[in-house]
């Protein structure tokens, strides 16, 4: 995969003489110190990142962290003070107005927090705005707008006006406007923040579903870590204009870079971040031909309550110690009679919260990759992973309050 958008050492200083502020930045002064001495605000501080084609890159931060400034620099709505932002071969940070317009028309479109739909245009005209600006003819515009609206499930509303639609529907129009321009990069500036929680969930799911077929490169801004974790292939956490940590959802939650990130991840439902495969153990299974004595001995040695028994490359069933040990004492020699052929299996890509029910049976769960048996998860390990987060967060919280 190649990088679609690359930002290198991007700075933004708001104020009358950004150079002096940049000098202070180089001397290692903090944002507050610089504001005190010069009255200038460092909006974005040395942001560097790459977004691969087809990836969802989420920038997460609280208000004032510079995330909205950052996303506006990517399409030149706010010119950066220094640094470069390459979109394919064009440096948005330094190109001419004409080139910048070309990038905006053909390569980058944007979805806004408060929808920013034009109230004097119909939904269809709103969706087609990017094409109209480009000079595309009316009939082609209408056809493409209809396609885009169909994609977001608003095909029937092309002739309505935005104020006749609900908030969620309006943002779908905003999304359709972004899709209709047929650009490869979609900037989304807190697109779901103004929506009700339930509708927000729907929109997130729908975005993921659309993304599966569209494969756009998406830069998504949010202040909601949950949203970031659900959507992001790669997540950047921003604080005071800097990237504190960049990584996958599991990296952010599993190994928070500092106390700030740890404090954020404290309330996160880890079962929705971690996949089953991250806690799976190597399967120490026996085959159906092995003797019951071997099986019991192995369980005792490994301190396990149960073992998977295979037959060829398939799983034959699960053998529990509770049943195997009495059977051995009663003179049973083969595994087959005491084998429990009912067993739980999940895909390695599943999230932990999806295996709660299977785990509640107390038996180990087989982890599959397609049809192949690749690992075992014991119920106790599921809860160990969840508890680990609580402990880490509590520690971080203590440190934060102590400091």
């Amino acid at each position, binding site marked *: 995969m190649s990088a679609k958008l690359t930002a290198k050492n991007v700075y933004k200083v708001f104020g009358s003489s950004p150079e002096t502020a940049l000098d202070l930045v180089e001397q290692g002064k903090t944002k507050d110190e610089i504001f005190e001495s010069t009255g200038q605000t460092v909006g974005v501080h040395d942001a560097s990142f790459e977004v691969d084609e087809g990836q969802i890159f989420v920038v997460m931060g609280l208000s004032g962290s510079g995330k909205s400034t950052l996303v*506006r620099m990517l*399409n030149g*709505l706010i010119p950066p003070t220094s640094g470069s932002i390459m979109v394919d071969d064009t440096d948005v940070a330094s190109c001419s107005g004409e080139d910048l*317009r*070309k*990038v*905006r*028309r*053909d390569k*980058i*479109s*944007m979805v*806004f*927090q*408060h929808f*920013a739909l*034009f*109230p*004097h245009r*119909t939904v269809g005209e709103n969706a087609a*705005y*990017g094409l*109209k*600006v*480009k000079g595309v003819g009316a009939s082609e515009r209408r056809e493409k707008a209809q396609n885009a609206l169909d994609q977001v499930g608003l095909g029937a509303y092309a*002739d*309505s*006006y935005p*104020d*006749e639609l609900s908030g969620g529907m309006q943002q779908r129009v905003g999304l359709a*406007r972004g899709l209709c*321009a047929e650009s490869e990069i979609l*900037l989304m500036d807190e697109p779901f923040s103004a929506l009700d929680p339930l509708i927000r969930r729907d929109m997130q799911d729908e975005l993921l579903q659309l993304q599966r077929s569209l494969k756009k490169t998406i830069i998504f801004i949010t202040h909601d870590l949950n949203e970031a974790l659900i959507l992001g292939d790669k997540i950047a956490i921003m604080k005071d204009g800097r990237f504190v940590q960049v990584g996958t959802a599991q990296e952010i939650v599993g190994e928070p870079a500092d106390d700030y990130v740890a404090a954020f991840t404290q309330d996160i439902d880890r079962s929705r971040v971690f996949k089953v495969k991250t806690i799976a153990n190597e399967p120490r299974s026996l085959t159906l031909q092995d003797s019951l004595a071997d099986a019991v001995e192995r369980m005792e040695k490994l301190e396990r309550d149960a073992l998977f028994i295979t037959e060829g490359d398939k799983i034959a069933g699960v053998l529990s110690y509770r049943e195997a040990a009495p059977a051995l004492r009663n003179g049973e020699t083969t595994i087959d009679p005491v084998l429990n052929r009912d067993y739980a299996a999940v895909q390695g890509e599943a999230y932990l919260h999806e295996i709660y029910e299977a785990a509640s049976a107390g038996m180990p769960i087989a982890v599959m990759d397609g049809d192949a048996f690749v690992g075992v998860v014991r119920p106790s390990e599921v809860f160990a992973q969840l508890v680990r987060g609580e402990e880490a967060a509590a520690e971080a919280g203590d440190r934060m309050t102590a400091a």
Partner: protein
Amino acid sequence: MWSPSDIYEMPFGDWVDFAVKDWLVPNFRPVFQSIRIPVEWVLDGLDGFLNFVPMVVFTVVLVAIAWRAAGRGLAIFSIVSLIFLDLIGVWSETMTTLAMVTTAVFFCALFGVPLGVMAARSDRFLKVLRPVLDVMQTIPPFVYLVPIVMLFGVGTVPGVIATFIFALPPITRLTNLGIRSVREDLVEASYAFGSTPRQVLWEVQIPLAMRTIMAGLNQTLMMSLSMAVIAALIGAGGLGLTVNTGLGRLDVGLATEGGIGIVILAIILDRITQSFAERRSSTSPSLTGILRSLFSSGKPARPAADKQAA
């Protein structure tokens, strides 16, 4: 008690007198005379046309417009009041005043809207323009009547020019205000999809500012009408002249006839233009949209609303 004027009395009036009489008038009279030409052209055309159209035809057309724009109430009022004006014998004067006012409003819109757009896009230009507009709005018209006569002569054209000075500020100010109060994120969205500044202006800012601009047009129109009498002091005809003549002869009846004519014109024109400004609360109409709705059949509602109702 001592005051600074004990030492020096400033002949400010003499300076202004000198600047106008001995410098502006001899050096620039041809320039000002050439300004007359387009005004004269529009004014004579309108005046000739309005006085040529038979009273009945004009009434029917105006009543139709009033009906479309503001409803049945205004239509009935228009019929009754126009017939009344004809009965009391000031029809021709009314048409002349209407021509003057329309000409003044036309030139106010022609210059005021672009000035307002420029002021909205440049804070520096607004800083220069604002005191000029303040002066135009607050200086008593009588003060500039004399230099206008010197530069443009007497008659209806100089009257229109005086009206122009008096009535230009509201439409300029409200155009500026309207464009500046277009939601920032809409402008941003427009730019984000690759619009040129010109496209942002025509596709987003002007349509969304149209309501405010129309309110400015309404104000400009009202101020033009209120200048009708003052303009008559420098030779403009119409209802203003009727009022002035009545005043000179202490003829209360004649003055009232002229005054009532101005009031009736003001009410009809105000209601019609206000309905343009108020129409369609969220979706501001474009100018062509307004014109189309005036001439098309059916209620001037939004097409989508019609479709959904159907």
